[in-house]
């Protein structure tokens, strides 16, 4: 992206904006994975329990009833780190 932006011939305003947005989003997401690694569970919307088909509440299996899930980015980072540590 930056390489493209650096070549003067391919400079168009929309591309610069798109590039900046992409960078901001990526960094913002990485930052949130670092500072707030957990987000609300999507299955139960953070409640920890769900309504079953029959209508009574039961613990959410997706988040072990905590209501929180690890962000996908953090999950990837953890996996990569574990791989690296295992290879040492």
């Amino acid at each position: 992206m930056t390489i493209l932006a650096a070549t003067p011939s391919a400079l168009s305003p929309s591309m610069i904006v798109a590039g900046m947005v992409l960078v901001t989003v990526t960094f913002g997401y990485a930052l949130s994975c670092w500072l707030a690694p957990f987000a609300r569970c999507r299955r139960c919307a953070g409640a920890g329990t769900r309504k079953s088909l029959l209508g009574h509440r039961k613990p959410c299996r997706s988040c072990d009833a905590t209501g929180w899930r690890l962000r996908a980015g953090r999950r990837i980072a953890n996996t990569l780190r574990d791989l690296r540590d295992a290879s040492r």
Partner: protein
Amino acid sequence: MKHERDDGEHELFDRLEREMTQDGGAAAGVTDLDAERARRRSGPADQHFEVSLDDDEDDGGPERGGGLVVEPVAVAGRREVIPSEWRGWANIRATVRYWLAYAGHVAAFHAVRLPWYAAQALFWAVVGVFRVAGRQIRWWWVAEQHSLRQAAADANDPGTWLKLHKETRSTRMWRFIVLGGEVLLLVLVLPVAWAVAPWWARVAGVVAAVAFLARAGRPADRRIVSAAVVTARLRRLSPDIVLRAYYAAGLGNPDRADKVVQFGSTMQRDASGTGSQVVIDLPYGRTFDDAVKNRGAIASGLDVSVNQVFLTRDATSHRRHLLWVADRDPLAIPAGKTPLLDCKRRSIWKAAPFGLDERGRAVELSLMWISVLIGAQPRKGKTFSARLLALYAALDPFVRLFIADGKSSPDWRKFALVAEDMVYGTHPTRDDADPVTHMRLMLRAVKAHILRVNEILSGLPVDLCPEGKLTAELARDPKCPDLRVVLLVLEEFQVYYELDDKDASSEIASLLSYIMAVGPSSGVVLLSASQKPSGVGGASNIGQLFTRFRDNHAARFALKCGNRNVSEAILGGDAYAEGIDASTLPTGKPYLGVGYLYGLTDDTPTVRTYLADHADAEKILIAARKHRETAGTLAGMAAGEVTVRETRDVLADVASVFAAGETGLQWPVIAARLAEAIPEHYADLSADAISAQCRSIGVRSVNVKSGGEVLKGAKLADVRAAIEGRDAA
């Protein structure tokens, strides 16, 4: 830091006080403190505050040696009610003047540096703003808990994370309020205060703020304000410390009247101002050697490095010696470049500058009439020290130089500028097809020189030659060109005792023995260096000659050795018995070129040799060559003379004894034919000798069949090949 300096000053005043009481200052009431201080300030040692090592000085000292101290120095007892510097108007005035001068100096020192301080402070204050802000943000964000939260996320443990998160949230809220208040204060109150306050308060505020921020911003080891007065901590020796050291080293027992250690003198600074010294009397029956053996323990008792402790024998009694404790390790201070760099003419009849001893005194070596052995581990400065002395001799144009460099190193190559003859190594090279024969011829020439000198000297009238010995005048007399002083340098001489050719080794060994025995008194100075002086293999005659040659050197210089056997080989057994062991010399870069010089004087100085590196040596040798050109004494190899040697081309000689059609000859046949054809050279040549000689120059020894008998011999083809190989090289 400040505290220490206070102690130092306190200590200084204690001493002042004590000494003044002693020399009647108290009785007179008035002492010229200015003069006293001037005296103190004059010496280099007095720029420091001396810090006593002994914590117990005030309570009278722990062990005073049973009252046997011969009043070494004024010993502190009761302190005066009113210190002498505040007693009497004259003293008070002098003291106030002193402190005013001191304060004036400090003020002037810092005033001059003020702009620099300001610049530095501003720079670090900018850094400090970020540091302080960063520190507060970390505090607000509960940074110390961060690693715990991350660990929870790493472990995918939402429970723990939630708990920590909740805890943190309340803390962060509180801290946010505190920080908000702080910012509010800065934003609202500060401008108001600025507007209201008088100018001096503003200045003070800015200075304080900058100082605070600079302090926060600067690295801990970078001080903005430098000290105006240097304080160095020196070991101040007191009699108590000395006694403590000797008793701790087991050299006496304070509780037994017949085992106490006594002082033979008062303790004093030595003349050079680099250490303290005192004469020690050991208990009856303990000897100087005991002290030398326990030097390490004494150093430990004195709480100094062993390199700072020096013991010197006393002529009057074997239980008495001089203890000298240097303020700092004197051997680690290099002696500097050689004074020979001025390239002036020197005289071999005067002492050669060699280095500095442990007290910084010049050590000189008078080369005439002696032989010097220098030994050490490789790369400890052996060649450099030998070369230092050879350079001195080179600067005397009337000294003939003969150099045999057994290791064929570049260190001696430049001596070709002045040397009359030089031998490199033992193996044929481009420069020298047969260095071993060359060596034999050179030594024969030296022997012939000795014989000639003695012949001339015995024929001279008594008024010219009073004691039948060479004199400085004779050695320079143009009418007696044969009476020059000769310097024979033998670098790694042991290799010439270990040649494959035993006959050559044996001849060289006996020549060297002769030169060693007769040479020095005939004006032949021997300068030998070896990294392997312990002896050459076998119990052969050569081995004995080697040992005898080595042990007959008059002066020995041992640099750092690998073990005490090597040290003993260089310095001799007597030196080891005296406690001198070159394997105990300190190791490390600062100690290169440090060694013991033994045999010249009664005390054995630890010498830091002057440095003359390759470039220096070359410069000196070029100058030496000029001196020789001026004096018209350039001769031999240095003068470009092709040495007319009665040398034999052994290969050519061997080739010549092959009759037409013969492809190989047995060694006994070759030896016999050579003896017959060239009797003046090969008259008593043995088969083994010619075999060894040929093998050393590249001719194989192979089986040759002749008359039905197979014996070792040489092929003509091999001899020819060796000749071609040599000529091509």
